[in-house]
């Protein structure tokens, strides 16, 4: 079977991702045994980003690396494996939020448009939006919004 990188390279929909991964020198890492679970944004996902975003990242490889590693989790997780979990830790360090029902599979604010693409060294879930690390205040704010002002939720 093919590695994660092989699969990505073979699909023109991932061309931006592949460019980014090679710019960040992550090809070798993603070719290693792993296993990894990769949330792979399609080209359209990158196009959704405002102009200039990619330029800046490509100029700054460590920062690009950080964004890319946020799309990768250690271990091989299919959609079913992930069911019932709220999040999994990414390689970058920040957890990736999950929302999974029978019909839906969302990570952060991205929707998985093709789940469970098996590779030698892991598994790929194709997503329609580039996901970004949610800052630490994100969840308390969401909770506070949901519970209303009276909950006196404190932003940590």
């Amino acid at each position, binding site marked *: 079977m093919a590695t994660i990188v092989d699969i990505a390279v073979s699909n023109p929909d991932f061309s931006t991702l592949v460019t980014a991964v090679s710019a960040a020198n992550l090809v070798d890492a993603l070719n290693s045994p792993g296993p990894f679970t990769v949330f792979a944004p399609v080209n359209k996902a990158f196009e959704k980003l405002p102009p200039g*975003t990619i330029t800046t990242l490509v100029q700054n490889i460590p*920062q690009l690396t950080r964004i890319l590693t946020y799309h990768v989790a250690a271990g091989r997780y299919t959609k079913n494996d992930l069911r019932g979990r709220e999040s999994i830790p990414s390689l970058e360090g920040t957890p990736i939020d999950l929302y999974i029902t029978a019909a839906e599979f969302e990570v952060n604010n991205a929707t998985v448009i093709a789940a469970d693409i098996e590779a030698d060294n892991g598994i790929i879930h194709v997503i329609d939006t580039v996901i970004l690390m949610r800052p630490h205040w994100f969840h308390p704010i969401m909770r506070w919004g949901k519970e209303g002002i009276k909950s006196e939720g404190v*932003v940590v």
Partner: protein
Amino acid sequence: MPSTLIEPTTKLPPSTHPFAEIIHRLERGGSMLPDTEENLMQIIGLYKAYAIPMDFYWRDLLYIAERVFLDPVPAFKYFLPKEYLELANHYAGDNADLRIWRGYATAHKELLEFIEKGELKARIPKLFHHFYHDRINMEFAEECMRAMFWHRNMGGLLEPYMDSAEYKQNADRAIRAYFRDNPIMLGLYKLFPDMFIEQCRQATMYSVLGLFWEVMCPVFLEMSDIYDEGGFKGVPDAMNFLVNGIFAIAGRPIYHRVYIRGEWYDIVPKSKGFTWLYEAAFPYVEAVFYRTSPFRGTKSYNAQAREVPDDQNDFHYGILYADKFPVASAGIPPTLLHQDMYHFLPQYLVDYYQKFCRGADDMLIQLGVSFQRSMYNVTSAVIQAGRAAFLYPLDDPNPRHLWANRYYFEGQLNRFANPKYGMNKAARILAIQSQDYR
């Protein structure tokens, strides 16, 4: 001619939040600041007036972080050498990494003129301008830095990194090199190493804020130029420009290096992958717009009076909560910033302020209120950018997504409705909804 807002296809029931009207405006892609021509003029004018002192702030912050570093008697830290005045902004000019401002990369011409002549309009030695307090109030920039430094746990990876062994090693190398010829300081360093490391952390924070403002300065200048060309149709346009700017620059590296005897010492190397958005922008907004520390002129520091919160998270003394009327009274630090902006107000704003309240006499307060409006707009941009980055488009057809957006907006606005320590009373969000607040 307000700019067009989004009309979502899927509709949610009306919000029941105390600021429901503002929530609805945000959901349609608007700003917390109402979309009026007057507001647009005020905020853009203030961005311009802010950008020019900011051009000094970021250059001097970097100068202090990189050159002054741990000088025990930094008496001349506000005297920028030519090198730093000519330092090319990475986001302006022909050789920019990403050209945000179409102008030039060196220090702004109005700034240079001010440094040279000041309000005294006299070509006298710099030192005299300095002692006459005819200068940029760098103290304000340093206070913002201190707020970011003192308030902790605002996210990002840099903050924990500063406590790591790796950081201490880097700092140690730089400190030893810096004090190579100064046995007294070296001896002190031996005795109290933590004191020096802590100073070094502060220098790092100088660098962080300098790098943050290096970006904001051309952004604001460009906005002013676009406005002058008739480019913005309304407040949301101005906000969206900021949202796009935030995205574009999000990945900008944050680092700290020190220049000692012709050699650069990395204290926080670029290779750590620290980014502008996570390590500078978010902490900045949190520390400066929301928290800072109570003005001594308005709150008692008496521990028994319990006016100052016990928990840093409850601090709410930033621009979004500040009372602008005491500006220029004793103990009101933002006066420094307002004075700096006062020098660079565009003519249309000067004329505008002349027409209200006491005209030239209380311009400092009037521009302070405008500044508050403009910062509510910047905060709106941060909130919208956060929504775009971490949540869903405003015209998302999925109601669950729209609900998430609403929770997000309501959660953000709860910060202005919280009765704890009277934050709801302090927040000026309702005041800026009206044009009569000035």
